[in-house]
């Protein structure tokens, strides 16, 4: 069984701060991490590998430094890694990104593709289902449990008010959520191998035979018109050093003023 897991290198958005003077993101000092949902997807692939045997390929699209998450993926247990990188891919929106990743995945002919539900920097949750559409395979989003059953995959999908049990024939694509599992740590031996011994395969535009009009900025129907820091509402009142009764009284008065009481 061949499994491709898409992993994205993202800034840890919990650590992102905005420069109040310029309204731009302060990127310095913000650690880059493997996107959490993708890590759950990788763990799911590694468990299938442990249980039934599988060859797991970690795939990432991004600048050359994104290889760090691919090394991490191999240190966790992925057999090989592939980085899709080219200046021509820059500025891609989700449609151009999914087109490019789908082209890379097609060369690998996997039985199963796993992506995270969404990346914490973009939060779109679009690339997974879009890859499946480009590949012409079924997808099951929001997987909280997966189980291989012959040449099919049974997936428990977490929708807002219901859980869907879906059976997909292979090949198919699954998007993983954090509830799927608890990802394992890298092993010392894995770390050594991943950084010292293993190679990362690099795919560029020339390798993927993609039309100029389908990739990068040109292949992106959407454009960012502007970005700006979120408008903050006017500051309220903060009260300190009150006794519990004084604090309760202050809240009761506010609730009366708001006509809640």
């Amino acid at each position, binding site marked *: 069984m061949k499994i491709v897991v898409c992993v994205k290198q993202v800034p840890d958005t919990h650590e992102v701060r905005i420069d109040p003077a310029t309204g731009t993101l302060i990127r310095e000092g913000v650690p880059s991490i493997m996107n959490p949902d993708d890590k759950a997807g990788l763990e799911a692939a590694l468990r299938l590998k442990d249980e039934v045997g599988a060859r797991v390929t970690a795939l990432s699209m991004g600048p050359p430094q994104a290889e760090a998450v691919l090394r991490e993926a191999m240190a966790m247990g992925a057999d090989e890694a592939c980085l899709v990188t080219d200046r021509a891919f820059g500025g891609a929106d989700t*449609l151009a990104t999914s087109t490019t990743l789908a082209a890379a995945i097609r060369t690998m002919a996997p039985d199963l593709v796993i992506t995270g539900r969404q990346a914490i920097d973009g939060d779109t949750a679009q690339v997974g289902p879009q890859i499946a559409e480009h590949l012409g395979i079924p997808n099951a989003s929001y997987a909280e449990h997966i189980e291989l059953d012959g040449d099919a995959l049974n997936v428990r999908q977490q929708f807002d*008010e*219901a859980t869907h049990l879906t059976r997909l*024939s292979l090949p198919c694509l699954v998007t993983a959520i954090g509830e799927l599992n608890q990802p394992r740590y890298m092993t010392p031996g894995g770390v050594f191998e991943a950084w010292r011994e293993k190679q990362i395969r690099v795919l560029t535009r020339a390798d993927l035979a993609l039309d100029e009009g389908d990739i990068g900025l040109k292949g992106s*129907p959407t454009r960012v018109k502007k970005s*700006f820091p979120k408008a*903050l509402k006017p500051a*309220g009142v903060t009260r300190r050093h009150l006794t519990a009764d004084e604090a309760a009284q202050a*809240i009761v008065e506010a609730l009366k003023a*708001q006509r809640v009481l």
Partner: protein
Amino acid sequence: MNTQDFSGVFVFAQQVDGQIARVTFELLGKARELAADLEGEVTALLLGHDIAPLAPSLCEGGADRVVVIDDPALRHYATLPYAQALSAAIERYRPAILLFGATAIGRDLAPRVSARVRTGLTADCTELAIDPQTRGLCMTRPAFGGNLMATIVCPDHRPQMATVRPGVMRAIERAPVAQPRVESFQPAIPPPETCQLVDVVRRVAHEAELADARIIVAGGRGVGSRDNFALIESLAAALGGSVAASRPCVEAGWVAKDRQVGQTGRTVRPSLYLAIGISGAIQHLAGMEESDFIVAINRDETAPIFAIADLGIVGDLNQIVPALIAGIGEARQNG
């Protein structure tokens, strides 16, 4: 692609088990404004099986017309049949704009459809407007975990597709419609051979309750334990409000997932939001900052929640909440 060939504002009218999702009416409310700016019409696309009786309520909520796609394959939501039906509708009706709720269903369906018809899609928008110059749709959404807002346009492709965060747009007052315009569209929806919905297990749903709540009492990590969460429940009961929580409480198993407010939970907009022991990570703020009045109780004076609270109390929730419950009881008696 000639963008002039596409017109009208279309809304995917999400229904589950014959219940129209609340966000559908919010989308119709916004669609009315957009259509007014474009001097166009609002069409609701209603997909399902035996759902025709739901159509008039969509007209009452703001649709000029409802297109019903009724097919046994659409009885329950499943990605491929729904994507097939919707893509056929796009081909047939050529909408300029197509809106979805940013629900689990909307965020699964919309990307699949956008890839099929090869157009742009903007996720989880919190603001939509028509650019008066280009007459294109400006879609504004939070990025980088809510640290930054970005306005996205889709200049040369149609339809312009967006998913819209529930709880952000305002539904219009429903008004009876004498002659609702309802038409049926029946594209071929071959049953997918590669994918089969085996079962749908409904979980207990609090969506309507939290989304409708006028008063929400939310607890965070500072509450400390599952047992201590009873304090939050007592306060909610005293105020006649609903209980909510931030993500750490859900992950710790103190509270059910459907009580979670924030980026990966619900977005709420109550008259009163009490944040207790919630530090105010940007992901949580994204789900509640539109509340009319926010009260925060936290021990840590530097907690970000105080930056958006209308009234912040720096102190120990274990002391203050019981005093507050007593104070509310007294106020009610004297009121």
